[in-house]
């Protein structure tokens, strides 16, 4: 394979891979945008969704991508419940308690999963796992292509929701100025709850995608959270489309980075880029304002 082809392949893989970071990041971005909380448990919820997919698949044989449809309402309800039950009560106390609450939640979820389902690595094997499609001289992983398409679809749906529906507009209004939104009659609790629910639902989608493409274990989530955070920073805290693009950028960075320099430094490159972005362009590379949807 020629060097050019190899490089193109790296780029494509980076984009496909990054879209998964993107899906994880959109939820994070949304939650941060409206509630100023860095929901560090996002990774843990993603893994929870992955287990959910695994069990549905193992017990019923339902294809994971159909699991997606099942996943959405379940995780929306979970998100709503988490907000109303936990985060709403702590919101008044400030940022640190909310962050620590998310941290406690993460530890609880991770260890609960390890306790219930053992910490052994799980993987789903379907008829299309590990299949590569030949497109010219390149190989594209089928499952990762599916993940990419799903990520785009999810981003598109959220985007439409925010722009076109009344509730979406309420969410946007609340994330710009909660006080003013409240004056206009928007219930902060409902709107925040809805935002949280969407954020968790997105985590659910990311979890289904994770389950189809990679083996996972309960402790995998935290690394995911960190990467998603970097993606959000790239895209701009609070920007939805930016989060997806940020994730793709991160995927590219890692892919190209490990190809050109050895694998050990890939992490440092990501974090260094992260620092540079938040220092030099805190609104993110793709966001115009900090609250654009």
């Amino acid at each position, binding site marked *: 394979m020629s060097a050019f082809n190899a490089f193109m392949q790296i780029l494509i893989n980076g984009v496909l891979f990054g879209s998964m970071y993107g899906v994880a990041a959109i939820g994070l971005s949304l939650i941060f945008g409206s509630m100023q909380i860095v929901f560090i448990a996002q990774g843990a919820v993603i893994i929870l969704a992955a287990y959910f997919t695994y069990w549905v698949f193992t017990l019923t044989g339902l294809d994971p991508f159909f699991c997606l449809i099942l996943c959405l309402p379940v995780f929306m309800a979970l998100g709503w419940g988490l907000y109303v039950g*936990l985060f709403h009560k702590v919101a008044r106390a400030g*940022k*640190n308690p909310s962050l620590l*609450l998310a941290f406690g939640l993460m*530890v*609880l979820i991770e260890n609960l999963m390890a306790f219930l389902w053992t910490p052994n690595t799980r993987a789903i094997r379907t008829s299309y796992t590990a299949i590569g499609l030949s497109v010219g001289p390149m190989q594209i992983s089928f499952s990762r292509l599916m993940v990419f398409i799903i990520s785009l679809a999810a981003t598109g749906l959220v985007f439409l929701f925010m722009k076109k529906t009344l509730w979406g507009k309420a969410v946007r209004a609340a994330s710009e100025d909660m006080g003013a939104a409240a004056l206009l009659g928007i219930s902060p609790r409902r709107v925040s709850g809805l935002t949280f629910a969407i954020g968790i639902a997105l985590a659910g989608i990311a979890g289904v995608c994770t389950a189809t493409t990679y083996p996972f274990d309960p402790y995998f989530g935290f690394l995911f959270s960190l990467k998603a955070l970097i993606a959000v920073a790239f895209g701009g805290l609070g920007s939805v489309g930016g989060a997806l693009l940020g994730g793709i950028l991160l995927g590219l960075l890692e892919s190209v980075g490990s190809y050109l320099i050895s694998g050990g430094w890939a992490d440092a490159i990501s*974090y260094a880029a992260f*620092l540079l972005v938040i*220092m030099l362009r805190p609104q993110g590379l793709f966001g115009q304002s900090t609250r654009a949807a």
Partner: protein
Amino acid sequence: MKKPIQRSAYILVAIVTLAFVAFPLLVDTEESYLVYFFFMCFIYVALAQGWNLVAGYAGQASFGQHAFFGLGAYITAITWKAGWTDFLDPVAMTLSGAGAALLAVVVGVALLAKLRGDYFALGTLGLGEILRVVFTQGGTLTGGPVGLLLPSSSYQSLGPYYFIALTIALFTFLFVWLLMRSRVGLALVAIREDEQAAASNGIHVLKFKILAFAAGAFFSGMCGSIYGYFLFHIHPLGFFSLNWALLPVLMTVLGGIGTLFGPVLGAFVLAGVFELANLYIPEIHPMFSGLFVILVMLFLPQGMMSLGGKGVLARLFPFILGLSNQRERR
């Protein structure tokens, strides 16, 4: 800000300190578990006070203590291996603290000047992670992922460790107390309450923020040093672990952020709770810890110190993080 301190407060502090000093002299340091437990608690107290200084008094929550903690440990290990310092050497510990403080100043100038609130917190997090990778790749100087092995035969007894850690904890406590009674402390609180107002009153905001940040880093560096001496094996995974960034935050918030005794209380209580969980429910203690944190945040988000007042603390207390216009004041 000077507060009227009751005489009883001084007396209680003196009694407690004396009790801690006397304790290891009355029991066998090698047999008693409490000596080790208090040793760890003192380290946590110092770390928590360091974070409290930056976040509770200066208003900048940082999630990068682990960077300074790890750096301090490595400085101690490297200087010992090179033969410049010795076992439990105060020079090494001061160097560790100073090195960490130096890093804080360098990073602080870059980060604190440009970043506020959440961005600053994220920036410090990124810093810690970068440092971890750098030390993992550091070659023979830092020992790479294996880390640096120190001669464990130097260990004689827990006694010296206990007293050194106690000294560090007392030092941080006194430092914060004295600082808060000085003009510097006044400036810090002014910055925390309203940065723009402080600046317009002639306070050089950046200078004071960096000062607080560097002081916090100094404490973290010293803690890293003594812990490194204890473990005899310095490596990136254990010393740059995010635990060291998050535990002080947890302890301070539990105890009461922005208060002098909050970190102390929080450190002891949290360490105690986790220890008991480890002893009695070793299989599920992390779940218990997670649940405990959730419950504490739900029911006691202002920390234990707020139990004493009548919600006065809550009223005086704006959000610590962030300076967005939407922030509500109560």
